């Protein structure tokens, strides 16, 4: 849930404030603190839009462009999802962020026995390109950027998206997708993995390489500190792990003979925002700077655009509480504020009811309105990086930077992120801290309003999103129809070609595109990969 630790005396005066990343906050900051930490306004800050981009990657920040809002949406059948997409767009949402159900995330068709009870439950069910044709019907795919929250089978889903867009008549160089496509964080924090670490990273490399050549407006990977933070790590570790994961993907592509400036522009990040306001703002500022330094010094990037840390900052799921759910509306507003003060280019917010259910339309709209109020009424578009120069914020930004570098070094010492995940080092670290945090809450050493303090009051009834078994039946019916109507001999041949390419270590994307056009299913394509690559085994961390 993410809070700092406060040590108080018997008069309730605060003696110590210890942020989650381990930094102690002083009662007062002065110019001397900046001197002590070696703050150099030229080197550490520069102007917005200038290296090292601490103040933002655009010279005019939100003056030139408001942030993109992209609420996570999707449930039931593609038709239901399409209706919700249109609703959110009609209310001013400027991008889409597609939620897929668990069978799709795990590469299973809707009629797979393992999918029973899960079809369309936490996101939209997708079996074949037919489902995408329905989900994106009437959506201007040349104007609306689409986040695809999919990882283990990101290659398949991106191919399906391209095939759909082309079928609708959009040119491939006009569509802008952001497949999440970050498998290492799934192995650390979210759990939707299928194949072993190395072939999984290979597939990510295939997507990056393919986008570089074929889909210039598509961001091939959205590296997620977000879910690792949700699983229990500190804000400093969130950034350090995300960067080391990104470095792993970078090296996968460099090993194929490309130059860093050829492809790294397409990298984006998905970072979390909950916890202490100042720590969050400092985190984003430090992260922008360190990413630029990482690219320049570690990989020798020369193109300015290669150095931009771009991404979606938002969410804040673990900061939300099940107790007194309406409080989450207020928390959400502060998290969005922190994201804006941190210079987020794209944002999303967990809805107040998400500890109970996937968001109802009312809750999703409230999140959208939160962003709109910040941008239209509160003054967040007035000036770029408004907290710059604050004794406290600049000191804290430097301190966060040090903490992040320290955590990155630990991963380097292990031999990189692939090793750190295969041995369970990161998973162990994250689980340990999640436990310590929970103990802190239960013992009352850490405070969450409504959870272990100010718990009085009436309980609010949350309206639950109803799971419709009929949606699953409808989905399975459509899948069976597709299997009957398509040219099955052709599909078998396309899958065979895919298998050959995977075995040879060719880039699989062009083969997936053909499979998708031929109405092969997600389950069928995944099965090919399972046969070639095998399956991931979790390291035992206890």
């Amino acid at each position: 849930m993410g809070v700092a630790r406060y040590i108080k005396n018997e008069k309730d005066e605060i003696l110590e404030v210890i942020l989650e990343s381990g930094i102690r906050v002083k009662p007062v900051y002065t110019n001397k603190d900046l001197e002590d930490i070696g703050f150099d306004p030229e080197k550490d800050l520069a102007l917005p839009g200038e290296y090292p981009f601490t103040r933002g990657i655009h010279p005019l920040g939100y003056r030139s462009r408001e942030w993109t809002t992209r609420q996570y949406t999707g449930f039931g059948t593609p038709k239901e999802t399409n209706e919700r997409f249109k609703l959110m767009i009609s209310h001013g949402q400027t991008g889409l962020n597609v939620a897929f159900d668990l069978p799709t995330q795990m590469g299973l068709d809707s009629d797979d026995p393992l999918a029973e009870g899960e079809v369309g439950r936490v996101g939209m069910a997708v079996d074949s390109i037919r489902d995408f044709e329905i989900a994106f019907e009437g959506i201007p795919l040349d104007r609306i950027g689409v986040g695809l929250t999919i990882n283990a089978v990101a290659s398949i889903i991106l191919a399906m998206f391209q095939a759909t867009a082309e079928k609708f008549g959009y040119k491939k160089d006009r569509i802008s997708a952001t497949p999440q496509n970050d498998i290492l964080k799934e192995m650390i924090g979210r759990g939707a993995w299928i194949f072993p670490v190395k072939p999984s990273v290979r597939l990510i490399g295939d997507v990056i390489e393919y986008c570089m050549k074929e889909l210039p407006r598509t961001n091939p990977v959205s590296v997620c500190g977000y879910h690792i933070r949700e699983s229990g790590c500190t804000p400093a570790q969130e950034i350090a792990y995300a960067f080391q994961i990104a470095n792993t993907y970078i090296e996968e592509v460099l090993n194929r003979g490309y130059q860093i400036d050829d492809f790294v522009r397409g990298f984006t990040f998905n970072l979390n925002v909950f916890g202490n306001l100042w720590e969050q703002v400092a985190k984003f500022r430090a992260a922008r700077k360190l990413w630029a330094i990482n690219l320049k010094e570690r990989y020798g990037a020369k193109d300015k655009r290669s150095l931009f840390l771009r991404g979606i900052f938002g969410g804040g799921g673990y900061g939300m509480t099940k107790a007194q759910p309406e409080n989450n509306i207020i928390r959400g507003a502060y998290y969005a504020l922190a994201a804006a003060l941190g210079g987020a280019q794209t944002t999303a917010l967990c809805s107040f009811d998400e500890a109970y259910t996937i968001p109802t339309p009312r809750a999703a709209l409230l999140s959208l309105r939160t962003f709109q109020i910040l941008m239209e009424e509160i003054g967040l578009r007035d000036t770029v990086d408004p907290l710059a120069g604050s004794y406290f914020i600049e000191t804290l930004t430097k301190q966060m930077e040090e903490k992040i570098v320290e955590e990155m070094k630990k991963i380097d010492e292990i031999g990189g992120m692939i090793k750190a995940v295969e041995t369970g080092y990161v998973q162990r670290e994250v689980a340990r801290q999640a436990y310590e945090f929970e103990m802190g809450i239960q013992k009352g050493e850490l405070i969450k309003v409504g959870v272990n303090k100010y718990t009085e009051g009436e309980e609010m009834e949350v309206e639950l999103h109803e799971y419709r078994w009929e949606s699953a039946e409808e989905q399975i019916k459509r899948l069976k129809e597709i299997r009957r109507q398509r040219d099955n001999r052709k599909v078998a041949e396309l899958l065979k070609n895919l298998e050959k390419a995977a075995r040879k270590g060719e880039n699989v994307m062009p083969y997936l595109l053909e499979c998708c056009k031929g109405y092969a299913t997600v389950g069928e394509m995944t099965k090919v990969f399972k046969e070639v690559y095998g399956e991931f085994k979790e390291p035992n961390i206890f």
Partner: protein
Amino acid sequence: MEKKIRILIAKAGLDGHDRGAKVVAQALRDAGMEVIYTGLHQTVDQILNTAIQEDVDVIGLSIMSGAHLPICDKLMKKMKEKHIEDIIVVVGGVIPKRDIPLLQQMGIKGIFPGGTPFEESIKWIKENVKSKS
């Protein structure tokens, strides 16, 4: 010395959110129990086989996706078929209040939605395992 309680913490189905399961596993271990964790993406059959092999007293299911009703229903039916109803089943995760009576009807008595204090669930497990033996 008293025999240690053996508990299987299980992640059933496709949901991969295991923060809660891992936190609870650590709490139960610190409370002196022997904890076995299945890892992710387990089918009901896999969970029951592990429970039998490991000779556990308790199965603790962690479910966050909303699929607790179909999963629990299947698990309880299969336990009857396999004649292992003596193993106590507890469930934690995102469990709406209105589903608690339905889970109880299936024969699940220990229901601990997210946020339940460890003290409470640990006490419940200890008492219920004791009264069985």
